[in-house]
């Protein structure tokens, strides 16, 4: 187990290397620079600015310098937000996105798994059809459509929730539902499919024959095994939720990191682009690692080697 975690952490090195090189090359390949403006600045000023941000160094040196800073958690200054460092921006905006992502992920997990469980236990009943119908709807309404619909119904008509912005727990509800619904749907569908397979296994019959209570059979014997395939999509889902927050942050005017990413690409704010991409990639890899560890907890047959 310990060795496994160490190996996964070492795996981060090539991942971060490749992701950072691709991002770095691509963002510098985009024509234009951070100092382009409607009214062109005099060349001397641009030269000075480039010198200040070391943008006149050869590219490989800029890359090495950046990565040297990155491993010391010094992400450099933001070019378009003059008074702020990238560390400041991440420290303020990342918790917002993480909060939204976690809330959505919780909705997906704790909504999706029970939904799938109920429809598998009561296969072909009204409850099954209803929850699979809901899942199909959730899967088919993209968050850029669901967001405005939810705002219109629950904020503008019913006035139960604020229309947009961020700040109190009640502000989290609509955006988290918007972001989490599609993943809730896929969790529900996968849980159902995998439960239906598991409850036909011999050990379930054995447990029943021994007179174990129905609920215990379902929750302890069946669900635990049914969750193994479900946990495989948990990692990718989390990554999807985190990056998907770009749209939701836009619709609900939430000051998260996703909104910053799109504007920083437009502004050629190189340090912000690099930092955001790397932090997202780290989050994805970290989440996948948690998922791999959770396999072992769910299924002791799986060995880490």
């Amino acid at each position, binding site marked *: 187990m310990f060795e496994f975690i160490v190996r996964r952490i070492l795996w981060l090195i090539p991942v971060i290397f490749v992701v950072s090189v691709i991002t770095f090359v691509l963002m510098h390949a*985009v024509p234009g620079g951070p100092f382009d403006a409607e009214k062109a600045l005099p060349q001397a000023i641009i030269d000075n600015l480039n010198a200040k941000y070391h943008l006149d160094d050869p590219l490989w040196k800029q890359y090495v310098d950046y990565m040297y800073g990155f491993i010391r958690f010094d992400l450099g200054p933001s070019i378009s937000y003059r008074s702020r460092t990238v560390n400041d921006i991440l420290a303020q905006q990342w918790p917002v996105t993480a909060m939204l992502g976690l809330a959505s992920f919780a909705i997906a997990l704790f909504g999706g798994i029970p939904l799938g469980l109920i429809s598998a236990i009561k296969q072909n009943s009204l409850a099954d059809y209803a929850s699979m119908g809901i899942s199909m709807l959730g899967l088919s309404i993209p968050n850029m459509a669901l967001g405005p619909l939810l*705002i219109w119904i629950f904020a503008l008509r019913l006035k139960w929730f604020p229309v947009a912005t961020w700040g109190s727990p009640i502000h989290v509800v609509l955006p988290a539902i918007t972001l989490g619904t599609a993943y809730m749907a896929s969790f529900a569908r996968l849980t159902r499919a995998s439960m239906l397979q598991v409850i036909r296994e011999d050990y379930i019959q054995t447990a029943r024959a021994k007179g174990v209570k129905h609920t215990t059979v379902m929750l302890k014997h069946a669900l635990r095994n049914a969750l193994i395939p479900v946990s495989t999509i948990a990692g990718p889902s989390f990554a999807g939720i985190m990056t998907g927050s770009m749209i939701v942050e836009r619709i609900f005017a939430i000051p998260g990191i996703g909104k910053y990413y799109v504007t920083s690409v437009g502004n050629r704010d190189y340090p912000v682009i690099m930092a955001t991409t790397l932090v997202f990639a780290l989050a994805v*890899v970290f989440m996948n690692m948690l998922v791999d560890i959770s396999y072992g907890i769910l299924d002791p047959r799986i060995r880490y080697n």
Partner: protein
Amino acid sequence: MGMERRVRRAEKQKAPKPRSLWRDAMRRLIRNKAAIVGGFIVFSLVIVAIGANWIAPYGYTEGHIRDNYLAPNSSHLMGCDFMGRDVLSRLIYGARVSLAAAFVGALTSFLIGVIYGLVSGFLGGKVDNAMMRFVDIMFAFPTLLLIILLMVYFKSTFSVIEPGTFRGFLSGLDRSMGGMLFIFIGIGITSWLGMARLIRGMTLSVREKEYMEAARAIGASRTRQVFRHVFPNILGPAIVSQALQIPGFILYEAFLSFIGLGVNPPTPSWGAMLNEGYIGMRSHFNLVLWPAVAISITLFAFNFLGDGVRDAFDPRQTR
């Protein structure tokens, strides 16, 4: 006498047709009501997209300032948008963009993924290891971030008008497609990874089968082994996986157009229309409602169809 008659009767009965995997799959697909509904919607969408010029009551750029934010009425069934353009007509033309993204995305990711997976799985060894490590690393790349970077790169590098050069050719082609070419390239580059992994795994398992050994024993060339023996046996799961991915391609296009990196205005895309609509939705909810309905119905149909295709090819799964 009795014997003879029985033989004759048996001869009269049709010999059972040989059943291939494809015929079986087709039969199961046709029996699946949800998939038929999905297929019918997709089919109608294709008709609408192809015949947009005849079906749409107005052109997608046609607008008049007096019609700005016009409420739905008898001549504009869904009203008009912020530039006085007919919403229904723009929705109809928008179907073209979504469907094109679906089909071209599926095709490119299928081609790249299948070739990459086949090569990796068939060659095996060090090549396979290196190719798959690359896929693993790319999986850690947040796809949406990569696609945003790629789109900004394409849009700004190829925005020049340089007749005669390759860049000029690409940018001209992209402009004539309303900005769709680069969306296709972006989707193609970012979405083949899962397919490559799947195909590689299947190739590895097929390679160990007896019929492959037989093919090698009679001296079939490598190309023949791949195309005659491996490829047909992995095609089914590949199609299933691609069918399930199609809604994702539609979403990619809508996402890019929503954040302003997709189609060029005035080309109508449902994602772009949602973006224009949600800003003014307090007073003009129809501008966001209709594109939302259109894209949801389309995804609904493709999801049903994809589920149907999966169940048809893999009937052992209990759903």
